[in-house]
């Protein structure tokens, strides 16, 4: 554009310009930020508080990987391993690989999936919306937020306090819409997103600090659903992305799909049911993983039969998919102006790089064996945690991370041609300006269409935003001067500033992608999420209080029965007050009892206090009876063991309750 005389259209529509919402001022708490790898198939959270080595945080059962799966079969939805088990029975209500839908419109979905997408309403933004049954429709951002919430809760357990901020990783190749969607997911989950960090940069950060040197690195990241290649340079304490490329719809899931297709063919299933398709996919994934170490494996077919799959057959099947990663690698080297042999290391990231065929391909493309010292599943989360720690204000010596614009940013000019204003691989943050003028005195408005992509025609690029600028002062042709600044911040998110040079008035619009949620929608989801968090919290408190009361009622009831067998242990007056307390407890415990957990707690405390003396006397008597013939040491050991047991019961009872 820029050529003022060619490209101004009077549209007459209103240009909504608003001041950006001022960021909330959050006090910094060093060491309480978390790093999240929000992956297509698995997600992880890691912490590296106050300069500590990064560590991933496991769930109660010691598992660090959280399957990026959310099941809407239950309400509230379940996340992770539990959700995955429901996948076979309800494939359309259990969402996996939702990252593929992030920042996408229904028209972009050109891959197969078992979900029911809701067509966009007339005139509304085209965002993927998934019907998960039970009258519930969700966006990929909300689904991702559920995963983030679980990870944040895990980190809270580890840190002892809620995390103050998070660094969330995204594929370097993610466009503006996908990044914005990720940031929105963080906000919906109630997280302060300090930074979106490119996954390869995170991986290099984890490696670079370990090595502490200078050098040129390639990061080959083949995850479940995305492929990224980045060339980075570490020099003078700065990690600089020289070039990045990839394919945001290529990953290990495609291996699984190719193998699943083969399995379905072997089983003679021309038109498989969704269930059979899903069974084949699960069998394919298991077979692929097993064949990383073995030469052949038995695979169950959806029709009940079993076939032997050799590594050779696997590689012949997935080879064409894996080969698709080579061209982006070559392009990235070229963009960076680096030859393969100049690289000091090639870092592997993502579970799919465990496949031997992929390692061979990497080795032949970069002419050197790849590095895999750090678990390729965790390396990204480690890097995110390190950067989160730096940004939380801890004393850690951080390297500076310079990212690049993943895709060129351009404007539509006459004839639908795109003129690039910020080229791909330009270091960010960066700003570009264009000055527009009027072609006639009558013209008071113009349309600006912002696009992202490398293609020459606007139709082939992703439409980021279209807006109309109105209010141009009436001036002779070519006399008006409207300067528009396009600015990509450190997260590669776009802000557009328009300044009318005649009056000097400056206004800003935060550009929301065509495929994104509006600010209002995000706010609504944040509130909903807070509401339901409140609701969940209340329900959990009530459940815990009821279980506690039930435990005391059972114990007192058993003691009363015991007292009935031994007259004299309990005086009538005491007995009467305990009975009254028991009766009120029964009322509170009834299914239609009070929903305020405080009433339940009060009933328990009352019952405990009126039965306290009775309980103590029973204990003493039991103790005396049990001690007959025991030595003093034995007695104190027994008491200590009992106390210990009580402590542990006291500490763990409510948690187990809340899980059930």
């Amino acid at each position: 554009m820029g050529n003022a005389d060619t490209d101004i259209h009077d549209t007459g529509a209103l240009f909504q310009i608003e001041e950006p919402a001022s960021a909330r001022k959050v006090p910094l708490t060093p060491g309480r930020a978390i790093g999240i790898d929000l992956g297509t198939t698995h997600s992880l959270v890691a912490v590296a508080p106050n300069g500590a080595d990064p560590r991933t945080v496991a769930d109660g059962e010691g598992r660090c990987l959280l399957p990026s799966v959310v099941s809407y079969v239950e309400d509230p939805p379940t996340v992770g391993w539990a959700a995955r088990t429901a996948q076979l029975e309800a494939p359309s209500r259990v969402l996996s690989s939702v990252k593929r839908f992030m920042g996408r419109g229904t028209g972009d979905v050109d891959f197969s999936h078992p979900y029911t997408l809701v067509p966009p309403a007339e005139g509304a933004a085209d965002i993927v919306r998934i019907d998960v049954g039970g009258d519930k429709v969700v966006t990929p951002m909300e689904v991702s937020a559920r995963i983030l919430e679980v990870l944040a809760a895990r980190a809270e357990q580890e840190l002892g306090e809620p995390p103050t901020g998070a660094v969330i990783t995204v594929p370097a190749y993610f466009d503006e819409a996908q990044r914005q969607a990720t940031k929105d997911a963080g906000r919906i989950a109630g997280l302060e997103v300090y930074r979106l960090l490119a996954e390869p940069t995170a991986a290099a950060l984890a490696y670079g600090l370990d090595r502490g040197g200078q050098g040129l690195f390639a990061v080959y990241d083949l995850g479940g659903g995305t492929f990224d290649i980045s060339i980075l340079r570490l020099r003078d304490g700065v990690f600089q992305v020289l070039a990045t490329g990839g394919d945001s719809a290529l990953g290990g899931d495609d291996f699984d799909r190719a193998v699943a297709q083969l399995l379905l063919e072997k089983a003679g299933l021309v038109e498989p049911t969704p269930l059979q398709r899903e069974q084949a996919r699960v069998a394919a994934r298991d077979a692929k993983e097993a064949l990383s170490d073995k030469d052949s494996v038995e695979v169950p077919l959806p029709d009940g039969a079993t076939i032997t799959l050799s590594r050779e057959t696997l590689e012949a099947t997935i080879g064409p998919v894996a080969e698709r990663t080579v061209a982006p690698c070559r392009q990235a080297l070229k963009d960076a102006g680096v030859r393969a042999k100049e690289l000091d290391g090639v870092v592997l990231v993502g579970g799919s790089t465990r496949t031997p065929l992929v390692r061979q391909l990497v080795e032949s493309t970069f002419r050197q064996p790849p590095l895999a010292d750090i678990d390729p599943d965790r390396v990204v989360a480690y890097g995110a945690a390190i950067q989160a720690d730096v940004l939380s204000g801890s004393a850690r010596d951080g390297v500076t991370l310079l990212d690049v614009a993943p895709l060129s940013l351009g404007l539509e000019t006459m004839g639908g041609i795109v003129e690039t204003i910020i080229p791909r691989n330009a270091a960010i943050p960066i700003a570009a300006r264009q000055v527009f003028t009027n072609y006639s005195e009558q013209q008071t408005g113009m349309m600006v269409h912002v696009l992202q992509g490398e293609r020459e025609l606007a139709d082939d690029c992703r439409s980021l935003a279209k807006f109309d600028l109105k209010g141009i002062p009436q001036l002779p042709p070519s006399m008006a001067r409207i300067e528009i600044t396009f600015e990509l911040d450190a997260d590669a998110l776009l802000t557009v500033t328009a300044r009318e040079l005649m009056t000097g008035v400056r206004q800003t619009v935060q550009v929301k992608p065509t495929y994104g949620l509006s600010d209002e929608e995000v706010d609504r989801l944040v509130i909903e999420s807070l509401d339901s968090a409140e609701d969940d919290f209340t329900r959990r408190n009530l459940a815990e209080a009821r279980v506690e009361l039930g435990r005391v009622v059972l114990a007192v009831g058993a003691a009363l029965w015991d007292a009935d067998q031994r007259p004299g242990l309990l005086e009538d007056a005491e007995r009467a007050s305990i009975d009254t307390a028991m009766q009120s407890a029964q009322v509170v415990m009834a299914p239609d009892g009070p929903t305020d957990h405080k009433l339940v707690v009060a009933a328990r405390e009352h019952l405990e206090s009126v039965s306290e003396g009775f309980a103590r006397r029973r204990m003493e008597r039991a103790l005396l009876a049990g001690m007959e013939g025991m030595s003093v040491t034995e007695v104190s050991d027994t008491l200590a063991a009992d106390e210990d047991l009580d402590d542990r019961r006291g500490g763990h009872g409510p948690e187990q309750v809340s899980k059930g």
Partner: protein
Amino acid sequence: MAAAGDHFAVLGLTARHDLPRDEVETAYLARAQVWHPDKVAPGETAARRQAMEASAALNEAYRVVRDPISRLEYIVKTQGIDLDSSDENTGAPSPSQAFLIDMIERRDDLEQAKASGGSKAASFRDAVEDSHDEAVDAAIAAVAGGDTPAAAQWLVQRRYWQRLLDEIDA
């Protein structure tokens, strides 16, 4: 934010067409560390805004100055001729009639070379690349000699050669 005339100043470098690549890199990296928004706490909105603007100016300066060609074009621009403008007086000069006729002939050759392929296509590309490099050398000499209009003329020709090279590679 630094004005559009200050790319060398933003980097703390003197305006020269023959800056060593390493000097540009060192100057850039030293400033990038100081001005990056990550160096400012997430809550400090105003300070982050400043850091963001300083970084954006630095990165734009780096993009322009790092590449020898865009650096030459930028020097010519600071001396009054903007190759991205079509303004009669201050915009890109029109190439000579002779040059345009030469380009038309080369384009015909391109079709033939493409059709025959192999070594013929390769030697055609080499010849275009030589013409491109000659234009760059001539532009450098003109800038060094203070002849801005001549430098602009050569740089315009270079753009034609570059476009032809891109078409050959496409």
